[in-house]
C-alpha cells in the first residue's frame, strides 16, 4: 500500500528545490475572532504556514473552516485579531497591488469591456491609458481572450469571465495570486479546462499561487502542497506535500500517489465516526426507511416496462 508520504526521487528533489527558494508569504500565529449574536466565534486559531516563490499551495477544508476568512485576511479585506501576515517579510496592511485576488463570484466590472477591466489595475497605479492598454492586450493574449477584448462581461461564459479575472489580477504583476474557490461555480468540464489553463499560466510566469477549494481532486491536481483546515475553530490539521509528480495530467487521477493523497485528505476532512458534529455539511439527516409512496404500486421506475 502506497502512503501519501512516499515521494519518488524526482518529487523529493522538487520539494527540496522549492524549500530553497525565498519565502513569499508567511503567516504566523494568525487568530481571527468575530462577534456573532450567539457570542464570539473563533474563525481561525493559531494558523502558521509559509509559501515559497512559484509554489502553488491549495487550502482545503469543510465549509465553515475559515478558509475564506483566511484568504480575505491575506488579501487585506479583513483584519486579523492577532498574528502576522508577512509578504516578502513585510507585514500586510490593507489590500494592495502586490496581492492579486480572484473571487468566486464574477467580480468583473460589468460597465467595462473586457480590455477595460484588465486595464483597471494599471490605470489605478497611475499608468497612462496607452501603457495600460498594451499591458492589458498582453495579458488578454496570455489567457486567450484577445478576440473578446471589446465584449462586455455579461456576453462571456463563466469560464471566460474567470479568465478575464485572472488576467485582471495578473496584469498588476502581484507577488502572489490569491484565488478564492475561483472555479466553484463552473460546470465540471469548464472547470477541468480552467485547471489545466491555470497550471499553464503558472508554469509560464513568475507567480506564486494560493488557491482555496473544497474539491479534493482539484487540490491534488493543482497543488504542490495542500493546507488542510479543520472547522470550528479553523485550525491547520496538516500541510500535505502532494507526491503526484509534475507535469500533471488528468490521467494521474488513477495513480497510487494520487489515490493515497486523496484517501488521506478524506480521512482528515471527513473523519470516520466523527460522532455527528451536527454542523458539518456532510452530516445530513437520514431519509425515512419506509418512505410513503405516491405512485401506483406497479409503476416501477427501476423495474422493466409493465
Amino acid at each position, binding site marked *: 500500500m502506497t502512503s501519501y508520504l512516499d515521494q519518488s526521487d524526482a518529487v523529493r528533489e522538487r520539494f527540496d528545490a522549492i524549500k530553497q527558494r525565498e519565502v513569499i508569504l508567511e503567516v504566523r500565529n494568525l487568530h481571527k475572532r468575530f462577534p456573532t449574536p450567539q457570542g464570539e466565534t473563533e474563525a481561525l486559531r493559531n494558523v502558521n504556514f509559509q509559501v515559497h516563490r512559484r509554489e502553488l499551495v491549495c487550502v482545503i477544508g469543510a465549509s465553515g473552516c475559515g478558509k475564506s476568512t483566511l484568504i480575505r485576511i491575506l488579501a487585506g*479585506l479583513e483584519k486579523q485579531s492577532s498574528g502576522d501576515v508577512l509578504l516578502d517579510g513585510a507585514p500586510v496592511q490593507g489590500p494592495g497591488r502586490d496581492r*492579486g485576488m480572484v*473571487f468566486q463570484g464574477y467580480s468583473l466590472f460589468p*460597465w467595462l469591456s473586457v480590455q477595460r477591466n484588465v486595464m483597471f489595475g494599471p490605470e*489605478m497605479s497611475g499608468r497612462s491609458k496607452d501603457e495600460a492598454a498594451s499591458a492589458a492586450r498582453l495579458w488578454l493574449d496570455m489567457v486567450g481572450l484577445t478576440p473578446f477584448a471589446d465584449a*462586455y462581461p455579461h456576453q462571456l461564459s463563466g469560464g471566460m469571465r474567470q479568465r478575464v479575472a485572472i488576467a485582471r489580477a495578473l496584469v*498588476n504583476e502581484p507577488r502572489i495570486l490569491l484565488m478564492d474557490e475561483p472555479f466553484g461555480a463552473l460546470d465540471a468540464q469548464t472547470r477541468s479546462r480552467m485547471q489545466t489553463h491555470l497550471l499553464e499560466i503558472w508554469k509560464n510566469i513568475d507567480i506564486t499561487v494560493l488557491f482555496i477549494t473544497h474539491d479534493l481532486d482539484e487540490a491534488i491536481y493543482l497543488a504542490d502542497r495542500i493546507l488542510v483546515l479543520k472547522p470550528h475553530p479553523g485550525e491547520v490539521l496538516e500541510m500535505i506535500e502532494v507526491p503526484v509528480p509534475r507535469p500533471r495530467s488528468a490521467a494521474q487521477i488513477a495513480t497510487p500517489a494520487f489515490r493515497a493523497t486523496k484517501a488521506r485528505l478524506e480521512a482528515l476532512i471527513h473523519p470516520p465516526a466523527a460522532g455527528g458534529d451536527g454542523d458539518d455539511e456532510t452530516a445530513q439527516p437520514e431519509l425515512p426507511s419506509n418512505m410513503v409512496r405516491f405512485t401506483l404500486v406497479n409503476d416501477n421506475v427501476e423495474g422493466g416496462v409493465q
Partner: protein
Amino acid sequence: MKNEKNQAVGRARDRLQQAGIVFASFLIPILVWCVVSYVPFIWHPKVQVTDPGAVDYFQPGMLVDRAEFDEQRALVRQQGLALPSGEPANPIYLPAPHAVAKALYTGFVTPPVQKDAPWLHQSLWHSIQIIFWGFLISSLIGVPLGILCGTYPLLARLSEPFIEFFRYLPAPAFGALAVAIMGIYDGPKIAIIVIGTLFQQVLIISNTTRKLEATLIEAARTLGTRGARLITRVVLPGILPDLYRDQRILLGWAWTYLIVAELIGTSSGITWFITQQARYQHFDNVYAAIVLIGVIGFGSDWLLERLGTRLFPWDSAKTRK
C-alpha cells in the same frame, strides 16, 4: 445563421406585439370614454335643450336633468302649448373626446380670451421650467448625498433618521413658509418640488448604492483603488443604470407636486390654465391640459428609457429579462 435570422424575426414580432399591447392599453380607456360619450343609452343623465318651446326658463343649449325636462314637457303638454325638444347629453364635466381633441388644437392656435394672459404653450413651458429647476436643484443635493450615505454607513446613520422624519411632512405644508421666504413668483414653487423630491431621493439612492455588489468594491480595492476613486471609478459607474432608473421614477414624482406648487403664491403655468378654464366651465380645455401633462410625462419618460438603453449597453441583459 438560419437560427440567428429566426431569432431576429422573433424579436421583431415580439416588439410589434409589445407595441400593440401598449397601444391597446391606451385604446381601452379611450374606447370606454367614447362609448360613454357617444352611445346615448349608456349614461347621458342630462338633456341639452335645442328648442325651449313654451317652457319659459329653457334656453337653447341649456343642460337640464332628464327628470326635470320630462316633467316640464308633461306640464306644457297638459297646457297644450309648444313642446320643448332636446338631445340626451352628458354633464358638462365630461366632454366628449372630439371636443377635447378640438380644444387641444384650438388651445394652441387661438389667442387667450383675456388680454396679456399666457397662451397654452407658454403656460406649459413655464411649468416645464419649474419642474426642470426643481428637479435639478433636488438632484444636485440628493444624488451626491444619497451616494455618500449608501457608501459610508456612519453618514447614513447620522442623516437618514432626520430625512426619514422629514419625508413624511407633506411638501405643500411648506407653501406659506416658502412664499414668506421667497416671494410669490417661481421661487416657492421650485422649493415645493425640491422639498417633495429631495428627501425621497436621498433615501432611494442611498438604498440603490447599498445594493451594489460588495465584491466589486473589494475587487477594486485588491487592484489598488482607494479613497475617492472607489466612488468615482467603482460605485458611481456600478450603480449608474439603477441610479438612472431611480431618477426617472423621481422625475415622475416631481410632476405630481407640480399642481400644488403652482397654486402657491401667484398661480402660474399649466395649473393657472386649468383653474382658469375650470372657472369658466371650459372643461374640454381642462381635459386638454391634463392630457398634455400626461403626454409630456409619458413621452419624456419613454425618451429617457430609450436613451438609457443607449447609455448603458451592459445593462441591457438585465433589463430585457
